């Protein structure tokens, strides 16, 4: 008899236990991997989702080619805008116009498109005329939504060719600003009248000017891009923390899962160990069997778990992303195709997960068998046998 025979027999004779252990290890790897990768991916993307204008300068630049529609019915104070223009001595400040809540709903129900710069003024004029509220000479920033499958759009008797679509994530911006905005309105006591003006970064050098202007016009909040960053940072932090808590819980749950499998495994063998000890086996020999056996279980678990992890993450990922970004062109963070499967896969995180599970597995096995062997004195065995 070779001693490995004992390990082999254990694995092959207690099939249910062996299969359970392997599936358990595989499952914990899959769940912790998918959770860790998706959350990590999500938290890295939230910085895009919650960034009002991911590339502010680009948006400015784009403003010369496109307009981005603002939701109908937004509050805008033209006087404030022209005040600002004179104050900062520039032609026109790009505006971010923040809708009220009810406007936001109608905004979501209408499809908003990007239209070429040449058409802007006509568009703005017609909207302004109809709604009585729009700026007349605006190349300003407006929040947009997506819909690319149409080539052109007739809005207020004008037909505009569609040349670009603002990605959906801008809508997150609305919510964020609205929250902030209403607090601002409450604070300033200017309900329904407050304007939030988003200024380009080059104006931020005049920070004292901005402060002064805000002091003089309490109903106006000038959002600098650094303030936007800060706002984004808070929300990003919140999301990241949430995501971290979630992945810690998943990792914890899967480690406890592996731990209980080990407990089950080793305590089912306690009697064997006792007999070995009585017969005169070295503690080292018993440890060896535990380690080798767990190693085999671990490797089998990983052999199943690794491809399943990759596959399930990729499927989930592409499913989620396909749903989110169907018609985005401005936002090119994702490209469709098979590279989904490997492109976003965070190998370092994955390997980290594999290592954690492996170490937990072998470590638990050792700790439990150490406890199991240390706990009793040989003299107590006689009571049992």
């Amino acid at each position, binding site marked *: *008899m*070779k*001693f490995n*025979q*004992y390990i082999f*027999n*254990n694995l092959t*004779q*207690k099939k249910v236990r062996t299969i359970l252990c392997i599936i358990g290890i595989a499952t914990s790897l899959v769940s912790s991997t998918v959770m860790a990768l998706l959350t990590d991916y999500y938290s890295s993307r939230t910085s895009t989702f919650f960034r009002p204008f991911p590339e502010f300068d680009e948006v400015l630049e784009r403003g010369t080619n496109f307009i981005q529609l603002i939701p109908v019915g937004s509050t805008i104070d033209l006087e404030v805008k022209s005040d600002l223009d004179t104050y900062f001595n520039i032609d026109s400040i790009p505006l971010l116009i923040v809708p009220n809540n009810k406007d936001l709903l109608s905004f979501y129900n209408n499809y908003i498109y990007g239209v070429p710069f040449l058409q802007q003024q006509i568009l703005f004029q017609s909207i302004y005329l109809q709604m009585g509220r729009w700026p007349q000479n605006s190349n300003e920033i407006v929040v947009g939504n997506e819909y690319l499958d149409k080539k052109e759009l007739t809005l207020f008797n004008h037909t505009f060719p569609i040349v670009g679509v603002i990605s959906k994530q801008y809508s997150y911006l609305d919510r964020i600003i609205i929250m902030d905005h209403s607090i601002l309105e409450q604070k300033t006591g200017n309900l329904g009248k407050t304007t939030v003006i988003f200024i380009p970064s080059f104006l931020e050098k005049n920070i004292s000017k901005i402060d002064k202007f805000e002091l003089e016009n309490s109903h106006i909040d000038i959002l600098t891009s650094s303030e936007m960053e800060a706002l984004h940072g808070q929300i990003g932090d919140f999301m990241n923390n949430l995501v971290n808590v979630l992945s810690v819980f998943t990792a914890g749950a899967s480690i406890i899962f592996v731990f209980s499998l080990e407990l089950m495994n080793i305590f089912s063998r306690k*009697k*064997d160990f006792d*007999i*070995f*000890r*009585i*017969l*005169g*086996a*070295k503690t080292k*020999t018993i440890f060896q069997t535990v380690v080798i056996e767990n190693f085999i279980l671990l490797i089998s678990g990983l052999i199943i778990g690794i491809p399943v992890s990759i596959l399930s993450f990729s499927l989930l990922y592409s499913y989620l992303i396909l749903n989110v970004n169907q018609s985005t062109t401005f936002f090119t963070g994702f490209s469709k195709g098979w590279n989904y499967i490997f492109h976003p896969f965070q190998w370092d995180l994955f390997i980290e997960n594999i290592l954690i599970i492996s170490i937990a597995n072998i470590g638990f096995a050792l700790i439990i068998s150490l406890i199991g062997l240390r706990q009793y004195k*040989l*003299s107590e*065995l*006689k009571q049992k*046998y």
Partner: protein
Amino acid sequence: MNSISTKTMNQKEEIILQLTGIEKSYKTYSETLHVLRGVDLTIHRGEIVSIMGPSGSGKSTLLNIIGLLDTYDSGMYSIAGIDTTNLTRKQKQQIRLQKIGFVFQTFNLIQTLTVQQNIELPMNLLRKSQENQHKRSSELMAEFGLTTKKKKFPYQLSIGEQQRVSIARALVNNPVIILCDEPTGNLDEENAQTILNHLSNLKRFNTTILIVTHNPSIKQITDRNFILSHGKIEQQA
């Protein structure tokens, strides 16, 4: 085994076990239970000796001390000429492996090993070669009528067969003594008789056997019988 059987009469007087004034008490938090109050026992090579006594008299305790599974409070105990007073855990483990064979009431076979593997296990722990292991286990399986069962697992055996496997396992490393705690306790009369016959057959190999039992028919096979009561041991006439 042949090497043992060719011992001369002179060597039969060789002392295998010597216990003098062994005392053992168990301390619970409320009281101290004096189980052994000075046990003197000497066993020579080739003897089959039984110890009887009422339940709770300390028979298993004594057997565990002899098997180096338990410690004693005072007295002197030597096995095969080795004084056990100052042995380390590792040394005790080596003596258990090489010099003592254990037979239990509940057999204590490894359920996931076959008959042959169970028998070879203690040899394996001594790192004996595969060849030697097979040779020795075949010998023993033939002796105990287990050759046809060699690939069976313990749960596929009758209890009598299981006890025979455990005796074969106890013998495999040619120990100086076999310690049996109630070897027939779980067996019916017929199986018990078979086991006793097998143990008695070991006489021809000059095997030393110490049996603790309630079974009075043990006297058929023993050379000497002891009674343990009130912490003292006495040889029966």
